[in-house]
């Protein structure tokens, strides 16, 4: 047994060394987009409810969430059915229906060049940080068909659906590495004001707010955090319960393992 341990430990060390040697050469492949980190709290029902409100008001008019049902969302997010029907259901009357947009896909394809993708699973495909950065990275661009562009997803067909909340941003340029280091990532909101002028850094792009929206920049970021949290929930509704069940299951198994070990010891007492 000792020999095996020695071999395994030497193996692990060498493997670590091998990866360390080969990784700088490997890191060269493919550049990753600069994303802001979203700080969601998936157990914050108020945040998820606000995200749901934003979703049905601003997203569902064009995008579907065609694997999700209204009543399931209401149940998971503690939204009373009456409130759901009154405030959150614009596309159908039946609470058991799937969340499908009323916009005809064929028309949408003609209008935008591409049918708006289904959003049920977007946060599992793109990951929450991408969604959060993307939603905040729209800017005015007279050169594009819709008049909008996005610094994370260049020449995206989608116009800025949330401009009445965010206002209108103007793209100044890519942030320098120093600016990214100082204000990039999750702290974009805090540094933008204290820094020079009113620049905000979203991802790796610098923006000016040329026309304010209904929300101030910090409020807008918070709203987008809620929307991202909702989309994250939407991609996997089971996540709200699976971790709770997991804690009980693992606790049970750890106790069971202890008992099994004692049972084994008892049986093996007569093995000499």
């Amino acid at each position, binding site marked *: 047994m000792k020999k095996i341990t020695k071999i395994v430990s030497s193996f692990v060390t060498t493997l670590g060394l091998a990866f360390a040697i080969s990784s700088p050469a490997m890191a060269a492949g493919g550049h990753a987009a600069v994303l802001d980190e979203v700080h969601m709290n998936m157990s914050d029902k108020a945040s998820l409810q606000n995200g749901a409100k934003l979703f049905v008001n601003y997203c569902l008019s064009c995008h579907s969430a065609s694997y999700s049902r209204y009543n399931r969302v209401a149940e998971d997010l503690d939204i009373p059915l009456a409130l759901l029907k009154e405030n959150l259901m614009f596309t159908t009357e039946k609470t058991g229906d799937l969340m499908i947009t009323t916009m005809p896909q064929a028309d949408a394809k003609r209008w935008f060049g591409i049918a708006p993708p289904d959003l049920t699973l977007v946060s599992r495909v793109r990951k929450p940080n991408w969604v959060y950065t993307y939603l905040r990275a729209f800017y005015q661009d007279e050169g594009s068909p819709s008049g909008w562009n996005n610094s994370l997803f260049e020449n995206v067909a989608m116009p800025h659906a949330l401009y009445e909340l965010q206002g209108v941003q103007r793209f100044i340029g890519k942030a320098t590495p120093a600016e990214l280091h100082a204000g990039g990532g999750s702290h974009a909101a805090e540094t933008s004001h204290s820094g020079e002028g009113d620049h905000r850094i979203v991802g790796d792009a610098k923006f000016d707010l040329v026309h304010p929206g209904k929300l101030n920049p910090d409020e807008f970021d918070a709203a987008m955090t809620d929307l991202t949290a909702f989309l994250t929930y939407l991609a996997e509704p089971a996540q709200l319960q699976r971790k709770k069940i997991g804690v009980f299951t693992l606790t049970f198994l750890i106790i069971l393992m202890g008992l099994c070990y004692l049972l084994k010891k008892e049986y093996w007492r007569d*093995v000499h």
Partner: protein
Amino acid sequence: MAIHRHDNHVSANAFMEWVDRRLPLTKVWNEHLAEYWAAKNLNFWYFFGSLSLLVLVIQLLTGIFLTMHYKPDAALAFASVEYIMRDVPFGWLVRYLHSTGASAFFVVVYLHMFRGVIYGSHREPRELVWLIGCVIFVALMAEAFMGYLLPWGNMSYWGAQVIISLFEVIPFIGPDLTEWIRGDFVISDATLNRFFAFHVILLPLILVVLVFLHLVALHQVGSNNPDGIDIFEHLDENGKPLDGIGFHPYYVVKDLVGVCGFLILYLGVVFFAPDLGGIFLEKDNFAPANSLQTPPDIVPLWYFTPYYSILRASTEQLLQVFAVGSGLVGLAAIIFTKYKAPVKVGIGLVALAFVFIFLNSSGKAWGVILMGAALVMFFLLPWLDRSPVLSIRYRSLPFKIALVVFLIAFFILGYLGMNSPTPARTLVAQICTVIYFGFFVLMPWFTSIGKTKPVPDRVTYDEH
């Protein structure tokens, strides 16, 4: 070597006597559990056989429940998986148990195979146990590959596209063969339906039969042990091995501890990280199959990546290295061995033939051949390994060094297969591919040199 068995099994009561006269229940119970003598020093590495069986059962059971709601139809498949994830009560749990189970299966099977290699369980008299196990491994790969198409995600689609199109390199019949496999010119509804049939009926059936044969063959020759010695050489007056204990209850209760440990890790993934950062469930597979949109990197799941790396590593340069290598091996065999002259001429001709073939064929075709050969190597292991001892505890240093180098190469190949290739990565993959095959090709040599340690008469057992 055969296990000594009691021919007169005593039935427990009148009912069992009635049964036993019609069905050899007590006989089977005794021969395969209560009086199946296993060495008393089986350690940690011996958990993975019974765990493989456990995962097989988990996959069969969860699979049955998944088919109750899954629709094998290109237009409905993706949505039906999401229906299972959302609308079927605890459907998400069943689905995660199955998707995590696929990876868990390969984890335990790889560890089980590794156990065989380090303790010489593939050597005489257990060659057939090992061979059947290798067939199980290949069948499991086919099962996993076909199962991966069923969610009809974009990675399902493109992964199947890439792997099936590999058959195109087969001379003459390649293009027709791939079309025949797919049932269409591209991956389509026809492909999905046949893969579903294979995944839920044919391969599970094959797997269960093979696992049964694996156990029958094992019980014919008896389990190996970490010392790699025959416990049946020291018997007591009843013909029971002195170092053997009944599988039941001793190893049943011991394996229960292993089962708990396994379930903690397995369910930990199921409940807390079912996609394990994209390793167990790839993010591109949460988008439905789209024949017009190729994912940025088409990569298989982790358990295939070492072989996928070998496939991608096959370039003209690698073949030149192989040509030089086979020439050198042939030359070394002629100069340093003590065979007769005609044999040496034969070796020389074979080596020359290999040099010629390597220099005159395409990298793509060889990628497929190498990937297949990488699996075939496992089948040859019982005969490539020439060490006078079975267990790594008593093996010579060259074997230990070779094994560690091989493992490192295997892990690096696996890592590279998960990532997009760059020239530097391809070079590393090629070096590791050479090491991979070098391990098997040179095994007859490095297992027969060096000084082995004396093997004890009886198993080493540390009583706590």
